């Protein structure tokens, strides 16, 4: 029987997979397991070897912390609003770049710039442009007579979440544009030609042809972006350190863990973050699947 030939192939496959499996075990599975384990202990970071098991105390402590719920709310607000804006803006720019206009090649390259810039750098650049006294944005606004004195964008507790979302939109819309553009290019131009010949108006063409055919591409892009936004750390941290108005769950967990040295509670908070992300991922993937089933 030539199951023998197949078995030889299977052995080869595992051999080629060996390095990646070692890496996954070492830097993903093992640390994850340790995090889960520490979450049940009262360990401190200065000496993690001394601890006792406290079962679910840490999990309950996190849930009883008002700051945790503020962080959850911030994270969800940030994720929903920024991904929604990015999707709309990304779709608009992708449609624009897909049209045959002079200079679109240049624009396609330019759109990659915000995406490639480190988050820290982008944050600093916008922080400078949004500076209340010397920022170019306030200068332009007062020059246009829209405001009489500079707005303290990053200092005001009511505006800072808006700033975080705005900068995130600037940085990550390119990713949306690229994925949607790739989806657009998968659509055969003949379909649009057929719609043209049939005299279908532009808005209807967009609504009944372009958008339904882009659904898979947009779905995947939204999934990636949502999962990325839920773990956002660097942007809010660099802009406002631990300012409660923009503290995300990642910042909260790291603060407990590193700044307060609470290995046990910090791990419990991390575990909650993990569960939150997993839950959202399952929901989104479920919704995408349902869509696909309904489409066929």
């Amino acid at each position: 029987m030539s199951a023998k030939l197949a078995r030889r192939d299977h052995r080869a496959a595992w051999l080629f997979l060996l390095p990646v499996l070692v890496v996954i075990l070492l830097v993903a599975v093992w640390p994850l397991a340790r995090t889960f384990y520490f979450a049940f202990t009262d360990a401190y970071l200065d000496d993690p070897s001394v601890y006792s098991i406290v079962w679910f105390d840490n999990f309950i402590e996190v849930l009883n912390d008002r700051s945790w719920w503020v962080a959850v709310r911030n994270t969800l607000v940030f994720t929903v609003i920024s991904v929604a804006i990015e999707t709309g803006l990304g779709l608009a720019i992708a449609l624009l770049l897909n049209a045959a206009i002079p200079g679109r090649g240049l624009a396609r390259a330019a759109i990659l710039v915000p995406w490639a810039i480190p988050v820290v750098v982008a944050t600093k650049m916008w922080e400078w442009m949004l500076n209340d006294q010397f920022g170019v944005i306030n200068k332009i606004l007062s020059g246009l007579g829209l405001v009489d004195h500079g707005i303290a964008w990053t200092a005001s507790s009511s505006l800072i979440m808006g700033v975080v979302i705005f900068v995130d939109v600037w940085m990550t819309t390119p990713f949306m544009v690229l994925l949607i553009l790739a989806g657009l290019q998968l659509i055969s131009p003949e379909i649009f030609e057929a719609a043209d010949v049939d005299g279908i108006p532009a808005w209807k063409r967009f609504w009944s042809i372009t958008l339904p055919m882009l659904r898979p591409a947009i779905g995947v892009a939204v999934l990636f972006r949502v999962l990325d936004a839920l773990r956002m750390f660097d942007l809010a941290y660099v802009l406002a350190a631990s300012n409660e108005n923009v503290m995300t769950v990642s910042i909260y967990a790291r603060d407990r863990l590193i700044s307060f040295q609470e290995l046990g509670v910090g791990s419990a908070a991390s575990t909650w973050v993990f569960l939150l992300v997993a839950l959202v991922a399952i929901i989104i993937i479920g919704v995408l699947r349902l869509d696909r089933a309904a489409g066929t």
Partner: protein
Amino acid sequence: MDTATLSRPLRKPSSFHRAKRRIVRGLQIFALLLVLVYTLFPYYWAFVSSTKQGAALYHSALVPALDFTYYRQLIDNPIFMGSLLNSAYVAVCTTFLSLVIGVSAAYALGRIEFPQRRAVLMIVLMISIFPQVVVLSGMFELINWFGLFNRPSALILTYLLSTVPFTTWILTTFIREFPRELEEAAIIDGCSHFRILTKILLPLMGPSLASTGILAFILAWNEFLFALTFTLTDENRTVPVAIGLIAGTSRYEYPFGQIMAASVTVTLPLIAVVLVFQRRIVAGLTAGAVKG
């Protein structure tokens, strides 16, 4: 007669359509210019600001003053130059390791039929969406065991968490695009799996490796959370952390000139790479997502 009017609606004169087309075209070009300003102006402004000294920084003249004092200060600053080197070292090593590990895994996942193939792919995909903060405690312990705390090499190890699943996934989709017959021909010619990978596929994968490598490099170059957590002292920092931690004595003396100069310096190589390899980057980004 109804059918005749349906197939031939009232025609407007050609000049009407020409004018309409021109207006649409004009609006499109205007929108395109807006997009260009939106994406490029912040970077341009950072450059302009970085070449202004003293009080000029606070005047919003749109042209650069081309005074490179801040850049000279950066070059003379051993801490900053050290963090540049650290970043380069960490990013290059991470990229190289992730490509080697990724290609090997991608060959198995893309080319060999084995029962657990889908399961392995799903695990790889799941790890790439992990929030990094979740492994922070365990990773801390791991790095202490290896005695790597506060060493740039620690970052290479931790970055593999995000780059390896990513390179594996993208390279798998790239490898699948090669025609199966090419590999069958090699099998008939007596090649082992290893020889197929090294002699047939790898020489053909230059562009795919470039796409994937650039993405992994950018990911490693820009990482912040692990770099902030696992390095303590200035001489071991990477550039993003160094810039993130530049601070003035008070809010009004915030050294924006220096920060902008550092930002431009750090980003310039990335932007050059991005503009040169634009097509390859787009290919890499979309290979993972669209066909996945």
